[in-house]
């Protein structure tokens, strides 16, 4: 008896994939330079089926990896060649929408955008908006604690998920909710990158659409001036829905790809979106424009319609893909720095470009200091890939040095696991490991991700009996 036999007993043949050619479809996520062919892929349709697979894995000591839409950028859904890949693409039902509760309950394979689409005409939406929202799954969002441009004001996935049904690595189906008294298990599970189990049902908060939305594009001669504007906006007590910035190289790429028509010669553009009750938005817009002018912006455009707004966003949203137009290959980084260190860190990145002869395009969520440096290289030129790797790593070092993080929203996955010890001590990582061991003592749920070295859990230590001696 093998794990195959068990899976074939539970699933119809079309939902257990063993054909090598079809398996290859699943060999990587959005981070295409890590690849592995899974031993077997299953396509469950219910939580009970997910639990059955997970139990089979437990029985035969086989690891498993969950996969949503495979858009992850840290290799989180990278399969194991000795393991089962559990794909949620057949779990795509929106189970309920209740506007009185301002909640929707959905299956994990539902795309992020589909939730908003289901309630938009009634004036509601689901707030976290990763740029990949048309494709990425809500299960993947939960695993990565995904963000998006509008997370500056509204927060990340973890701030919008109210309850989960999960299949634990032992194969039990358990509900965890923010309403439960005691430890915030929900908060610990969100962002755990598939290492604590598989989410099979997700309850999300729906928000009332804002009365007014306005988008401003401001062009600056230098990225420093743009950064100054960001600091001043925040310093003035304004909390925009989004503040995004692109540097000259990113603008060039976006122009080449989608002809977004951003002001020529801009060293940086800032996109500021304000939303909320109309009178608030109106007064804030005036203030933001004044700040941009005062900090040296030479052109400001305010979108007068939804169309114009979409046009401003087009350049930003296409930036990652667009960079493909100006460089054969690139690495996307996801470091975070305190906003007040943006200028210094960008100068540091500039210095790295000169030192290594590698170009870096900067696109970032400026409001929360989340950088997405795109490290460009030619994968056919000998040594360039390695140099780009070094530059990437050095950028993360810069972020850590300034008290930041190695990842703001893309997750650690396989890609950044080796950087974890630069950010955390052994004691920190061991403590996180205790959480892992509580959920997954067998280490079968997405092993090899997030943490640099595999650790064994061991038995729960036995209660030690000490005598309360007179020690004080």
């Amino acid at each position, binding site marked *: 008896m093998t794990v195959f036999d068990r899976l074939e007993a539970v699933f119809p043949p079309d939902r257990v994939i063993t054909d090598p050619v079809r398996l290859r479809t699943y060999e990587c996520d959005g981070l295409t330079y890590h690849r592995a062919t899974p031993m077997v892929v299953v396509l469950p349709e219910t939580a009970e089926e997910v639990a059955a697979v997970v139990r089979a894995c437990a029985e035969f000591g086989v690891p498993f990896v969950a996969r949503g839409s495979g858009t992850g950028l840290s290799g989180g859904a990278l399969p194991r060649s000795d393991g089962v890949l559990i794909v949620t693409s057949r779990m795509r039902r929106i189970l309920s929408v209740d506007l*009185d*509760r*301002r*909640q929707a309950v959905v299956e994990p394979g539902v795309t992020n955008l589909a939730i908003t689409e289901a309630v938009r005409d009634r004036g509601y939406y689901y707030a976290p908006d990763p740029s990949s929202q048309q494709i990425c799954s809500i299960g993947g969002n939960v695993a990565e604690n995904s963000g998006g441009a509008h997370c500056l004001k509204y927060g*990340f996935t*973890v701030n919008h998920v109210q309850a989960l049904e999960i299949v*634990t690595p032992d194969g*039990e189906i*358990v509900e*965890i*909710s923010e*309403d*439960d*008294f*005691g*430890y*915030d*298990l*929900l*908060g*610990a599970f*969100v962002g*755990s990158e598939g290492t604590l189990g598989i989410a099979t049902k997700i309850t999300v908060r729906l928000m*009332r*659409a804002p009365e007014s939305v306005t988008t401003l594009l401001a062009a600056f001669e230098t990225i420093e001036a743009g950064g100054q504007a960001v*600091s001043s906006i*925040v*310093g003035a007590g304004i909390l925009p829905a989004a503040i995004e910035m692109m540097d000259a190289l990113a603008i060039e790429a976006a122009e080449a790809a989608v002809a977004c028509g951003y002001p020529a010669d801009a060293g940086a553009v800032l996109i500021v979106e304000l939303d909320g009750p109309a009178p*608030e938005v109106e*007064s804030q817009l005036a203030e933001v424009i004044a700040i941009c002018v005062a900090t040296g912006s030479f052109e400001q455009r305010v979108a007068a319609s939804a169309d114009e707004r979409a046009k401003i966003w087009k350049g930003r949203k296409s930036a990652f893909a667009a960079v493909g137009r100006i460089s054969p290959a690139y690495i996307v980084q996801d470091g*975070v720095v*305190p*906003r*007040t260190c943006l200028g210094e860190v960008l100068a540091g990145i500039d210095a790295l470009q000169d030192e290594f002869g590698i170009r870096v395009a900067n696109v970032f969520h400026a409001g*929360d*200091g989340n950088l997405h440096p795109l490290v460009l290289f030619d994968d056919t030129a000998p040594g360039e890939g390695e140099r780009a790797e070094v530059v990437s790593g050095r950028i993360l070092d810069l972020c850590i040095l300034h008290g*930041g*993080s*190695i*990842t703001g*929203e893309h997750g650690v996955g396989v890609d950044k696991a080796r950087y*974890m010890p630069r*950010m*955390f001590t052994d*004691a*920190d990582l061991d*403590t996180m490991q*205790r959480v892992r061991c*509580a*959920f997954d003592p067998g280490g079968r749920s997405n092993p090899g991700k*997030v943490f640099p070295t595999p650790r064994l859990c061991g038995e*729960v230590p036995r*209660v*030690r*009996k*000490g*005598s*309360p001696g007179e*020690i*004080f």
Partner: protein
Amino acid sequence: MLGHTRVTIRDGGPADAVGGVVPRWVALPESVEEISVVLGACADAGLAVTPAGARTKLGWAAPPERVDVLLDLSAMHEVLEHVAGDLVVRVQAGIPLARLAEVLAGAGQELALDVPFPEATIGGTLAAPSPGPRAYRYGNARDLLIGVTVVLADGTIARAGGKVVKNVAGYDLGKLFTGSYGTLGVIAEATFRLHPLPADRRWLTFECEGWEDAGALLRSQLEPSAVEIDHPAEGLSMVAALFEGSAARDRAEAAREVLGGGELRADPPSWWGRPPGSPLASLRCRVAPHVPEGVSVRGSLATGVYLASGATDLDAWRSRLPGDARLVGLAGEFTGDRWGPIPSLPLTRRVKERFDPDRRMSPGRLAGGV
């Protein structure tokens, strides 16, 4: 005999009791390292420990089975780092919220938590959270927490998160520890995301018969920061909504039109964000709840988080609430089950076993003997 630790220790007395259990000693550490030394020594000697902040909620939840040492964090009351430009603050866990608010107000900022007792500490607020009115707009304590330093039962010092508002590296231990009531370890330091103080604040209050009336405010686009109800045991209920921002007054006036009445005010009504009385229970219910005779309820129509007083038979009340509602006895005497269903209890137990295998951190405070 703990002289080598140099941590201030005194004998415990009745005034230090935790839910009726008098600790033998009170330790007053002044740094993360001192917390670690005390906990390490307690581990060696098998002593049970309960952390304490300002002790405003020390009696909440079940009494611990035993307390040898009360770990009092009141000597750890410093702001460690406030970077106004980043809207971030790092503090020691024993700092009272009022003191922190004072420091932040100097920079026109606030930690957007509504805590009814100004002396309450950050550590206690994280360990025993009970979301206040503005949680609707700003989230709960866990949503504003971006980094934490904890000390585990064996003295291990661990950090998670950091000092940037956006960060997904590693597990979020800070969230895990919120709601832990001192049973997982000690929260020693915490880093929070801050908000600018709003230009203006206005409240709209109105009396109503039922709970439905306020729904119009939540369906509106006026973006209230909070919508609260005070439902007394007798008489009419009162709903109050808070508007924040430079156009707060206009929005509050627009809200009055939506409702067809109400009173505009610059200050909150007296009951705003205060517990209704005792015995005190926590109610989570996303639809208008059934409220038994003689029970008063206060809380947020927007988030479904309420505190209730006057109910002792919680089982009976639970049977009239929707299945996903939660009713938990916080403080006072209750007949029957004070906890109600907690589907995730087996997982909670497993976390407890990994963090505190000897069951020495406030054992038995939470459901299922956790």
